[in-house]
């Protein structure tokens, strides 16, 4: 997967938990939960969506490393083949 494909995947996964939001409109360096006003269950659903689409199983202690769109993309780029 290219970086752009991963970015698209992140957007798609976010759209799944926040259908009314436009992830591309938020600051990619801001906290996703704050920006999209999503709660911890939404966030877990987001992590599961990423897992489904990329195969990456993010351990709980790494959740903080996927707090922003940019950091989530870098995290996944490093782990997706």
């Amino acid at each position: 997967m290219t970086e752009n494909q991963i970015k698209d995947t992140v957007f798609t996964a976010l759209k799944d938990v926040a259908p009314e939001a436009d992830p591309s409109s938020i600051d990619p360096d801001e906290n996703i939960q704050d920006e999209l006003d999503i709660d911890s269950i939404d966030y877990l659903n987001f992590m599961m969506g990423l897992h489904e689409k990329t195969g990456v199983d993010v351990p709980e202690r790494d959740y903080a490393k996927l707090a922003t769109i940019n950091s989530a993309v870098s995290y996944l780029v490093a782990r997706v083949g």
Partner: protein
Amino acid sequence: MNDFVMPSLGADMDDGRLLEWYVKPGDAVKRGDIVALVDTDKAAIEIEIFEDGVVSELLVPEGEKVPVGTPLARIGGSGEGAAGGMAATLPETPPAVAPETVIETVGKPVPPEVPVTQAVSSVHATPAARRHAQERGVELSDVSGTGRHGTVTKADVEAVAKELEATLPAEPEPQPKPSRKRISPLARRLVKELGLDLATIEGTGPGGTVTKADLERAAVPAVPKPEPKPAATRVEPVKAESSPREQKQAAMRRAIGAAMAKSKREIPHYYLSNRIDVSRSLSWLEEENLERPITNRLVPAVLLLKATALAIREVPEMNGFWLDGGFKPSEDIHLGMGISLRGGGLIAPAIHNADQKDLDELMADLRDLVKRSRSGGLKSSEMTDATVTVTNMGDLGVDLVYGVIYPPQVALIGFGKITDQPWVENGMIGARPILTVTLAADHRASDGHRGGIFLTTIAKVLQDPEAL
């Protein structure tokens, strides 16, 4: 032959728009089948049918908005055609009254002195009053009860009937069906204040009800700027341009306002709080999650839900409904989950039989419920049968929740944020993850002593997470 009616999907629902039929005449339906999609002010809800039968006729077309209790379809061929409603109505919804419910229409504030929630679904009336109301053609929802707990008595009905006779035009129009003008209590008062002739006003509300907006239109030529008397209802200019989204938002705020005003007006709340050391629960959870793939991971909220459900078993006074002047405990424990909707508002769909589910099942239910609250697919049964509500505001950083009970329930449990705090145990001070749980409970159904036992039980159960 039975009518399948627009269900009440909560104390704060007045009407619903039938978005889509999933069945057509001739279709056989079974109890639990989803037959229609209905849009409330809050969300699109899938409506289940509660009896077996065959759809003989659809009475309401797609796209139409109708009040709670309006027949939506005729269902036949289910053997005896047993009595009892076909719809997922709240227990307090009086079927005889609901179809007639007068609805305050969209687009205006509701002054606090108007007993609007009585018009929603929970008119308590004596049997004699109900009979009399039918004979006299009075909407029970128009009558303010003077009996015990606001119960409507026969005398109350007669008083309104007299008042109606006085207000009505002497010669009813020759329409066969609406034998009198339907008008909301608020609108009726405005008729007097604005000096209008009710007979000349066309009602545009549900069932031709004359609404405040109709009066405002009627009043414009004669009284351009009605000067309200002190303490009288202010006539807000009708907002000309508001988007459907804004209107929906406004409708939801009104619905929540009506339910919460009813709660604050009628329920004598008492509040208790308890700080809980959740270190054992959290460390157990952390270890547990290490072994679990992401698809099976648990969140702390799930432990709190299970602990709440188990504590309710010990203190059943927290679980059930206050109806017709008495507490009706519920055998089942259906936890209503307060879920905030992005863009404003909240809903509280239920996780069914939470005390009987293990943590994995609860987790799956919770994730599923949140997801469907966001993107659609909530079922009517989930919206109607919560027996108690839980709200978890820890995600927002809230320390302490001061709950408002969702009528006709009798308790609301609130969880705040888990934070590290100084904690003394066995004379030793240390930092522990601490959670504050609060209880808002109905003093008619329970006392602080039982509420205290309830909160202590939650705390105790959380000390032994393996047993959850």
